[in-house]
C-alpha cells in the first residue's frame, strides 16, 4: 500500500500563548488541494492567530504547519509567500500612495522579473475582481470594500496554491458578497485554487465552503459540512446562538 500524498495544508496540535493567554490551544485540521474550507468562531477565538502562524508572522509554541508535507515553521512571511501561500489582512494594508494597478503588480512580481508580464497579470486579476476601471487611482482613495478587493487581488497576483482570506466579505453589501463568492468559486473550479477563509458572514460561508472548522477560545469545537455545522448544538451554543438561521 503506497502512502497517500500529504494534504496541501496540514495543521496539527497548533499552540500559541501570549503571556499566559492561550490564544490557540490544540487546533488541528487539514485541507486537501482544491478544497474551500471556512474557519469560523466568535471574536477572539484565535482564527487570525492561526492564520498568522501559517503565514509566518508568529512562530507557534507547539504543533505542526505543513504545506504539501513541508514544514512552514520558522519561515518568514516572505518565504511562506514564496512557498505558495497568499494571504489578505483583516485590517487592510494597501500601498496607499501607489496606484491600484501598481499594488497588484507588486504581487505579480513574486513570480516574474518582467514588469510587462506583471502588469498584464495585474490587469487580468483586476478585471476578475471588478477593479479594472479604478486601476489608475491611488489605493488610498478606495472605499473599504474596494480595499478588501484589492487585498484579494494582490494576494491572487502572487499565484498562490493556497489563499488565506481573513474576513474579506465583512462590510460588503449582499450583492457584492454574492459576486465575490462567485469569483472565488470560479477560481476554485477553473484553476483548482485552494482557499481557507475566516468569515463571519454566514451567507458567504454557506455558499462557498465545502467544509467548516469551528474554534472557540483557541480550542477546536467541531468540523463538518456547512449544513452539519450550523445544526451542531456546540456551535449554536458558542457562536451562532439558538435562533435558527
Amino acid at each position, binding site marked *: 500500500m503506497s502512502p497517500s500524498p500529504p494534504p496541501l495544508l496540514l495543521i496539527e496540535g497548533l499552540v500559541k500563548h501570549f503571556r499566559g493567554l492561550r490564544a490557540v490551544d490544540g487546533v488541528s485540521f487539514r485541507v486537501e488541494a482544491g478544497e474551500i474550507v471556512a474557519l469560523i468562531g466568535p471574536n477572539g477565538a484565535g482564527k487570525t492567530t492561526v492564520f498568522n502562524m501559517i503565514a509566518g508572522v508568529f512562530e507557534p509554541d507547539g504543533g505542526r504547519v505543513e504545506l504539501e508535507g513541508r514544514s512552514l515553521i520558522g519561515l518568514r512571511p*516572505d518565504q511562506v509567500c*514564496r512557498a505558495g501561500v*497568499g494571504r489578505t489582512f483583516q485590517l487592510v494594508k*494597501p*500601498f*496607499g500612495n501607489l496606484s491600484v494597478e*501598481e499594488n497588484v*503588480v507588486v504581487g505579480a*512580481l513574486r513570480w516574474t522579473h518582467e*514588469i510587462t508580464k506583471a502588469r498584464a497579470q495585474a490587469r487580468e486579476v483586476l478585471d476578475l475582481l471588478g477593479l479594472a476601471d479604478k486601476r489608475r487611482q491611488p489605493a488610498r482613495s478606495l472605499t473599504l470594500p474596494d480595499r478588501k478587493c484589492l487585498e484579494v487581488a494582490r494576494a491572487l497576483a502572487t499565484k498562490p496554491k493556497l489563499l488565506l482570506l481573513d474576513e474579506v466579505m465583512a462590510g460588503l453589501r449582499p450583492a457584492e458578497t454574492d459576486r465575490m463568492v462567485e469569483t472565488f468559486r470560479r477560481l476554485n473550479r477553473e484553476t483548482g485554487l485552494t482557499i481557507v477563509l475566516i468569515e463571519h458572514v454566514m451567507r458567504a460561508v454557506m455558499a462557498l465552503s465545502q467544509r467548516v472548522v469551528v474554534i472557540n477560545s483557541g480550542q477546536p469545537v467541531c468540523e463538518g459540512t456547512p449544513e452539519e455545522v450550523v445544526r451542531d448544538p456546540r456551535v449554536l451554543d458558542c457562536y451562532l446562538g439558538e435562533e435558527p438561521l
Partner: protein
Amino acid sequence: MSRQAILLGLLLAAFVVAPAFAGPYLLSVMVVVMYFAYVGQAWNIMMGFAGQLSLGHTIYVGLGAYTAAALFVHFGIPAIFGLFAAAAVAVAAGSIIGALGFRFGVKGVYFALLTIAFAEFTRILFEHFTALGGTGGLFLPVGSRDSFDLIHLRGHPLMFYYLILAMCVGIFLLCRKLLNSRLGYTWLAVREDQDAAAALGINVFRAKLTAVMLSAGLTALGGVFFAFYYNNLFPNQAFGMNRSIEIILAPIVGGLGTLFGPILGALILTPLGEGITAATEAMGFKAAGIKQLCYGLSLLAIVKFLPEGVWPWLRLRLGLGDGEEGE
C-alpha cells in the same frame, strides 16, 4: 515624446550650452546646483524610494571623499581607480549601519538617529586621524588648471562642470530605470507597508539593505567629486550634521520619491542661498547663517503649503500629466 521628456531635454540643453555664455561665478553656482541634485538623487533612493530616513548621509560623502583623496595624496592612485575604493568603503559602512538597524528592528526616527550617531562619531574619528590631516584638513595638490585630465581629476573647472553634469544625467537615468524595475517596486512596497510587502514575498531586510548600499555607493561618488573639485577636506565639513541637512533639502523641497524632485529642489535652493548671500554682501553687511535661515524658511513653507514637494504641484500646473515620470 512626452512633455516631461521635452522639459528635461530643454533643461539639459541649457546646462550643456551654458558655459558658452556664463561667467566663472555663475558656472561655479551651477556646479553646486548639480552637486546637490546628484547627492539629493542618491539620498532619494533610500528615503524617497525605500522609505528609510538617513539624516547622517554626509558620512558617505565624507568617506568617499577621504578615501579617494587619501589614495591620491599618499599613494598617487588616480581618482578613476580611487572612486571604486571610495564606493566600496561607503557601501561597507552603509551595510553595517543598515544591517545593525534593520536586524534589530530599529525603524523610523530611531533609525534616523542611528544614522546621525554614525556620522557624528565618524567625524570625531577623522578629527583624530592625523595621517589624514585631522582637524587641520587634508589638501590635494592643485595641478594645472588648463588640462582636462579625467584620469586624475585634475584640470580646468569646465571639466568638473561637465563631469558633474554627466553624473546627474547618469543617476537620473539609473533612478528612472530602477523605478521601473522589480527592485523599484519592491522598495516602494516596503516604503508603503512592510508587513504587506512581506506577505507578497518581499524580503524586507534585503530590500532595505540594497537601498542603503546603492544610495551609499552613489553618494560616495559625489564625495569623490567634492574632494577633487574643492581640493580640501575638513572633518567638520565632510561629516558635519549641517551637510547632511543640506543634502536632504533639495529632494524634500522638490518632491520626495520623484525623479525631478532633487533636480528642481537644487535649482530652487542653491540660487536662493547664493542670491541671498550676494544680496546681503552687496548691501554691505555680513550676515552669517542667512543662507541657512532662508533654507529653514523655505522648508517651513514647503511643509506647510506643498507637503509633497514642488514638483508634484508643478507637474499638475504645467499639465504634464500624473503618470510615471520619464515614460
